[in-house]
């Protein structure tokens, strides 16, 4: 079986999280990731790029370089932002097809599935959907150059 780049990244994160013994450690790590750096430039925090969750807000920006999609994203809630940083780490720099096909099962394996539940209304589900839509749009563009 061929291991995709996305699966490799997912595996890295699963190993990283396997070091934590309880939920406190896991969440402290996510909070740390969320705090590390502003993931999106302030000038990109526009309403155009805003995905409104009921609970927290998410901004997502995407661009293509060398046939690969690069995401930057941000949120006003730190836990959401921490999870965003994991998603960006996995998906950014991959090809549109890989992004479209992945099911992001690592989120479940590291015990954070609840955050990707539509009932959370934290904007993450919409963000993942939007990431895939960008990838789809870029792939269509690549296949049908003007």
């Amino acid at each position: 079986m061929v291991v995709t780049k996305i699966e490799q990244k997912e595996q890295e994160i699963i190993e990283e999280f396997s070091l934590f013994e309880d939920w406190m450690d896991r969440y402290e790590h996510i909070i740390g990731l969320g705090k590390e750096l502003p993931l999106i430039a302030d000038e990109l925090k526009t309403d155009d790029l805003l995905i409104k969750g009921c609970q927290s807000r998410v901004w997502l920006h995407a661009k293509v370089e060398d046939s690969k999609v690069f995401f930057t994203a941000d949120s006003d809630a730190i836990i959401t932002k921490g999870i965003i940083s994991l998603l960006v780490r996995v998906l950014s720099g991959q090809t549109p097809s890989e992004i479209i096909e992945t099911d992001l099962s690592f989120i479940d394996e590291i015990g954070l599935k609840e955050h990707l539940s539509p009932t959370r209304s934290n904007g993450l589900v919409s963000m993942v959907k939007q990431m895939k839509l960008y990838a789809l749009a870029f792939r269509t563009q690549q296949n049908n150059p003007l």
Partner: protein
Amino acid sequence: MSELLTDIDVIRAQFPILQREINGKPLVYLDNGATSQKPQSVIDAVSNYYSNENSNIHRGVHTLSQEATSAYEEVRKKVQKFINAKHSHEVIFTSGTTGGINLVASSFGETFIKKGDEILITAMEHHSNIVPWQMLCERRGAKLKVLPISKEGEIDIEEYKKLIGPKTELISLVHVSNSLGTINPIKEMIEIAHAQDIPVLIDGAQAIHHTPVDVQELDADFYVFSAHKMYGPTGVGVLYGKEELLNDMAPYQGGGDMIKSVTFEKTIYNDLPHKFEAGTPNIVGGIGLGAAIDFINSIGFDFIQAHEAELSRFAVSQLRDIKGLRFIGTAKERAGLVSFVLDGIHPYDTGVILDKLGIAVRTGHHCTQPVMNFFEVPGTVRASFAVYNTKQEVVKLVEGIDRVKRMF
């Protein structure tokens, strides 16, 4: 009446769900503003209805239907007594508070609201008491006016008087605010409105389980509430309306039960309350509501009010000392909840960590986005109390918040 139930442990023991553990911790349920938990008596009433009494009500000649009809109509009388309505047919069963407001917006609107008329609400209303009026205004070319609130989350009566004008046709306001806890001076506000012959609808969703409501004493024209916030089932609620107004209003939905006779040429509508109750209602919900009223009566509002006021006071006194905590809503008259934000910590983050500790609070805008915009916060953390909550639970909340603060 039998002796009142005033021992918290005995009260708690009636709520099976309070025995649950969440994330390995005993559940601390402080999201009663969203919905309260249900006592065994309500659960049993619902279960017993389906096990032994289930049948469709009204017009059935067989025994089960007769029994179910009586049971359902007995609840109407129980509600009448509970809110001291003059007549039991002034009690209309709805799907809940939202259902009741939509009914009035539709039927009262159909009959009474014309182009250029004004409907007045306050800036602290739940979306359910904003959007139905916006929709009505759009349909009729009417105007929605909004009474501002102060930074404490209170209404200014002088401002209120100024906003009432010759074109005001209806005032709709919340009894107790779900996001701020403010108790509005509704009696005084109704009196002011009535001086100019303007009817008033009161959204009692957050009041009905905290405080005795006497619709005649308030002289409310409409009073709406939900069963599920008063220890009853979801999907059922009450619209109280004055007989005269309800009689004048156009029907809401058409269907069975709301008619006297139907031909293809003309339909004669049924009398109150059935005129507003098309279709098979939430019968079992009504039965559960009856049991919920019995439950509240078995404790008594004297105890409920004293206990919840004590919990709120205690919560405020404990939370006040937390550095970086800011209360949203500091009205003098408040009921049943505390709403706050933590400096630099998003309410969502706070809610996630508290949940890990087994503490259920509500975070977000509480369906009052205009209130959040007014206070310039993305949302708040809200702890709302019911009769089964304890001071120990408040202490756990405070410890939980300390933990949250250490983590961020």
